């Protein structure tokens, strides 16, 4: 049996074991606490049919996506600005480090105060998380630029703009991607936390209303959906990365297909 097939088979076995354990828990402790795989599956289909799940998932994805764009793009550009202005970089450095250190989820109540209870506070929360992760990752890529490449390019006529475009930018892209890969699950998580605190839609809202109604099945439906979304997003990012970075030598060893790491 080829090793790949074997791996997939073993993965399937793990899935069966996890579902069996879940089933065992719901039998032992009762479906009121653990729901059950079957209940969740039927409810999932029901919620999908009614459009309720789709509506809420889109809302959460929207917050995560807007936040990732609005936080991630400036975070990718700022290192290029700072590369040419070391003084500004030195001044901002402790503040960026402090910003990175602030527990972002603790900012959620503040964002709700400022931006109300619609999409904006969730987007703000996602921005605050994605920005720092992508910024520090990209910055280390910009700092890791090969000085020899820069020298060679200068000698053959490259201006500062050409260096940024042809040497620093392509070199920093893998680092930016690493930042986005780490940030993606956090972005979804931040959107959900925002909804948990105050919202009338989204997967976080589904979890919250399920929990308050003792509707454990609904909670699990939302959790399963979130898990599937995060895995799917990771796969997409890894796919995009593999295509954009096809110039890289193949990585040694088995790399995770999910995280791409």
């Amino acid at each position, binding site marked *: 049996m080829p090793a790949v097939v074997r791996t997939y088979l073993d993965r399937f076995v793990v899935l069966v074991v996890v579902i069996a354990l879940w089933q065992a828990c719901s039998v032992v402790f009762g479906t009121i606490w653990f729901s059950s795989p079957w209940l969740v599956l039927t409810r999932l289909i029901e919620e999908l049919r009614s459009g309720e799940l789709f509506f809420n998932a889109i809302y959460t994805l929207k917050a995560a996506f807007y936040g990732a764009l609005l936080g991630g793009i400036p975070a990718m550009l700022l290192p290029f600005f700072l590369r040419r202005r070391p003084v500004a970089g030195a001044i901002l450095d402790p503040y960026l480090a402090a910003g990175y250190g602030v527990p972002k989820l603790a900012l959620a109540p503040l964002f709700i105060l400022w931006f109300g209870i619609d999409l904006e506070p969730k987007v703000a929360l996602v921005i605050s998380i994605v920005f720092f992760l992508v910024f520090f990752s990209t910055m280390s890529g910009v700092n890791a630029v090969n000085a*020899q490449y820069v020298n*060679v390019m200068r*000698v053959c006529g490259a201006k500062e703009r050409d260096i940024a475009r*042809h040497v620093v930018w*392509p070199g920093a892209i893998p680092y930016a991607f690493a930042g986005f890969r780490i940030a993606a699950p956090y972005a979804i998580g931040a959107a959900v936390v925002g909804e948990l605190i105050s919202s009338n839609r989204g997967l976080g809202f589904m979890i919250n209303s399920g929990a308050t109604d003792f509707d454990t099945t609904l909670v699990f439906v939302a959790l399963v959906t979130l898990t599937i979304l995060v895995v799917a997003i990771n796969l997409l990012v890894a796919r995009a990365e593999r295509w954009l970075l096809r110039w890289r030598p193949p990585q040694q060893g088995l790399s995770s297909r999910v995280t791409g790491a």
Partner: protein
Amino acid sequence: MTAAPPILEVKGLTKRFPARTGETQSPLILADLSFRVAEQEFLTMVGPSGAGKSTLLNIIAQVDGASDGEIYFRGELIEATNATALNPGWNCQIGYVMQDDNLLPWRTLIDNVTLPLKLQGRYDDAAAARVETLLRATNLTGFERYYPHELSGGMRKRASLIRTLAYDPPIILMDEPFGAVDAQTRGQLQQDLLRLWNHGRKTIIFVTHDIGEAIALGDRVLVLSRSPAKVIAEHRVEIARPRDLGNLYKLDGFGDMFEAVRQQIQ
């Protein structure tokens, strides 16, 4: 060839590295180094490892500043001692092939080779044809769309060589460009270089620590001392061109010159 006006003249070049904290003496890398290179001359410089050969080429290529001294390019003084006013490559007049191939890993072979021409706004049909010829001359045809990591060490070296040849700077500096390849590939690369040079006849300053290579390739060999580097001897290589590098060692005079240089380097 001595009658030809020098394309490059180096006068009293001195380089000190900044002193480490706690030490008063700053190490001297180049000490009052002077030499001339004639138009179309293939000058090789041989010296022990760590003698400051790379530093010398970095200064001529203007990616590093000197502490003192002057450099003239076709009679024109090149700024050398003011590090902030350096003009790397002197307006694309001085090409530089470094020890590492330094191909950009995210660009295919052809995109690497043509990048200097594009940056200089000179990538026209004539330039494309020229690149085509160079690719063929170095057996790289068919590999244009490959990324550097997919190419062998020798192929990358050749690509890095023709990246500089393609934009045709009048003078090319080479810093042990064939250092990190196996002996057989190295012999092939040397032969390729000589063939390309015979086509275009540009000025080359080729630095190496390999005495045989210095004699085999050069019109003239300068011997550099241990650090701080200065020119301690000069040998004119009278071997006729085109040279058959494989049989060079059998020629009269090669062994004597090799031995003389070896003694001087000690």
